[in-house]
């Protein structure tokens, strides 16, 4: 999928080349459930699809428009609530409507609220916008517990996705059918959001993000540009919410509160807000962490938190940024000389991480279990948390791994810079 961003750099290429990443994406979406067919993986992929749309819509604000929002879950949640109500209308035959159109109504309610809220919040970017979004987020989350008729109070609103007229024999009784519904919506919305970022409007959003004053001088209203981005973003977040409603058949207050707003910021940022595909990667990674890691460990959120803070501190371009740093090396065919340094710094780092994770897990086990349960199993190994040996091994792993990795760092940096050095005129490498 990383081809999507490279396609733009070749405007003169043939039609096939432009569409290649999209064909690739479509084929990938179609065959995925055949490769990963177990219940848990289909569940994970459904969640991924929803979060991809949600995170991309968030990046229309943060990455492309320069608006840091702490309340984006409002549009996701409201879209979800509206959709689940529509599902109930279909069930009681107030509307006759196929189920796959329901997310549109989620999108529309997201759009309506984005128009209302954006009309005053997009006047300024930066801290004012962030604070208004935080205030609105808390406001809506708190009112959702008060207005029980629409939000269903603590237990939320539930629906039934199997109702309504069957189109092409789909009744969404199985998760795989829902997967294809989400996949189609994801494909359409990803394409639409990508096209939006290529329009003059999308380009102006970037301009306003980079320098609002200059954008004003060439005759664009920064407020109007932000407002349009904001509305589009709310619309797509609402669609994601609608898909969430269909997938889980229940929407609760949790889907529009500050936690969900934080999660979407986390996904977009870990993935990399400077790239179109960044949030896609972020959503995939986060969902994997959430569904897989939580099977193995209770403290997975601690790891996610550490990952997030490390990303902000050392890789502000996110995971995609790290991947993109390797593009020039691959293009210059210099991957070979980098392999050895990578191994030499990578293996000790992994050993250090194994030691650290082991320590954290063991400490957590000792603290959370009753005192007589001293046996724990970690990655298939059974050991006694009250004996000394496992602790010694883990501390040795951490310290030695960390020390060796640190000692390799200068050499690695040297090799990295050599690989990135510009090609000299005689065609050979710089050194």
């Amino acid at each position, binding site marked *: 999928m990383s081809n999507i961003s490279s396609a733009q750099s070749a405007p003169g290429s043939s039609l096939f080349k432009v569409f290649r990443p999209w064909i690739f994406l479509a084929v990938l979406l179609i065959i995925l459930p055949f490769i990963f067919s177990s219940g848990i993986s289909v569940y994970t992929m459904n969640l991924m699809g929803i979060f991809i749309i949600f995170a991309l819509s968030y990046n229309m604000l*943060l990455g492309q428009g*320069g608006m*840091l929002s*702490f309340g984006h879950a409002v549009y996701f949640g409201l879209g979800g609530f509206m959709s689940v109500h529509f599902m109930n209308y279909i069930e009681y035959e107030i509307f006759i409507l196929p189920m796959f159109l329901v997310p549109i109504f989620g999108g529309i309610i997201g759009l309506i609220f984005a128009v209302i809220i954006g009309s*005053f919040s997009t006047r*300024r970017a*930066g*801290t*004012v916008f*962030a*604070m*208004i979004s*935080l*205030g*609105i987020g*808390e*406001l809506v989350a*708190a*009112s959702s517990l*008060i*207005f*029980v*008729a*629409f939000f269903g109070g603590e237990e939320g609103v539930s629906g039934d996705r199997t109702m309504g007229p069957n189109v092409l024999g789909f009744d969404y009784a199985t998760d795989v059918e829902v997967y294809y519904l989400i996949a189609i919506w994801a494909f359409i919305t990803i394409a639409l959001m990508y096209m939006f970022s290529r329009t003059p409007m999308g380009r102006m959003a970037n301009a306003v993000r980079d320098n609002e004053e200059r954008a004003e001088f060439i005759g664009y209203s920064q407020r109007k540009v932000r407002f349009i981005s904001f509305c589009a973003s709310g619309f797509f977040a609402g669609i994601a919410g609608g898909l969430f409603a269909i997938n889980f058949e229940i929407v609760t207050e949790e889907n529009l509160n*500050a936690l969900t707003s*934080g999660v979407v*910021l*986390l996904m977009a*940022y870990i993935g990399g807000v400077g790239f179109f595909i960044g949030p896609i990667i972020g959503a995939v990674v986060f969902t994997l962490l959430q569904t897989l890691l939580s099977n193995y460990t209770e*403290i997975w*959120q*601690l790891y996610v*938190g*550490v990952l*997030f*803070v490390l990303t*902000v*501190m050392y890789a*502000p371009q996110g995971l995609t940024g790290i991947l993109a740093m390797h593009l020039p090396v691959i293009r210059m065919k210099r991957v070979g000389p980098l392999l050895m340094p990578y191994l030499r710094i990578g293996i000790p780092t992994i050993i250090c991480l194994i030691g650290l994770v082991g320590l*954290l897990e063991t*400490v*957590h086990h000792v*603290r*959370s279990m009753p005192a007589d349960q001293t046996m724990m199993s970690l990655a298939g190994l059974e050991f006694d948390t009250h004996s000394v040996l496992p602790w010694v091994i883990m501390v040795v792993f951490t310290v030695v791994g960390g020390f060796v990795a640190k000692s390799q760092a200068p050499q690695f940096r040297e090799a990295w810079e050599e690989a990135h050095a510009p090609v000299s005129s005689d065609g050979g490498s710089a050194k």
Partner: protein
Amino acid sequence: MFELLFFSLLNGVVTGLLLFMLASGLTLIFSMMGVLNFAHASFYMLGAYFAYTISTYVGFWPGLILAPILVGLVGAVVERYGLRHVHRWGHVAELIFTFGLAFLIEEVVQFIWGKDTKAYQEPEVLQFALFNFFGQDFPAYKAFMLLISISIFVVLLLILTKSRIGLIIQAAITHPNMTAMLGHNVPLVFMGVFGVGAALAGVAGVIAGPALGTFPGMAVVLGPIVFVIVVVGGLGSLVGAFVASLLIGLLQTFAIALDYSVNDLLMLFNITTDADSALRDLWTLSLPQIAPLLPYLLLVLILIFRPTGLFGKRET
């Protein structure tokens, strides 16, 4: 009615001054670094947890001194090795960093102390009713909270306006480059202010822990409210933070104390409502119900109509 108003007033002032302890540090940090510290309430939580652990060994009183110092050190480390590092990537990155830090601190607290509420209690010396008014007791611990917050406010004001350190801090806020030229270590001042701000939040945590409960969600409960105060009062304005803290404290306690609903209002005009309509929640809406909403409503209104806040001079 009078006793209700009296006690609401007292409780409102106690809450307000507690909030001010958080808001004062936050607003100072903002005026120095231009960054709203999302993790500020997390320092408050750390204060409560540190004090709880210390109190299980040596009692409440040493915790009152030691815990804020520890929190201040944590804050200084965060500034020195975290925020200063992220600073080069701009304000948005700094904001996101403190946001991530808040998330991380909550996870770390859960990792170390567990998810349950800790039995952190006020010292026995203060477990009596200070006075009895219209048959209602006023606990001595609340008076103690009041005393601590007021003395901290006074000391802070004196340090900032009267002492040499206060002058350097004020100079570093408005003219950092000039202050550095005069031979003062401005980054050190920044680190110090951040540490002291965190320590103040820590003090608030130590004294609020027994009253409001010590649990991993305590930062999330209070954090957004402190933001509201800082923005409503005017970013960077200590007086504004003071007024806004009292305002929010009183607003919340009075809204909870006065049980009026929309129905009561409509009754005044002899309008009856249908109990089954889709808008039924709107008619039964009462003041205690919307109490948690009011600060955010105030925040949004202030940001729309007066972005500088009540006492602020510059726009956020």
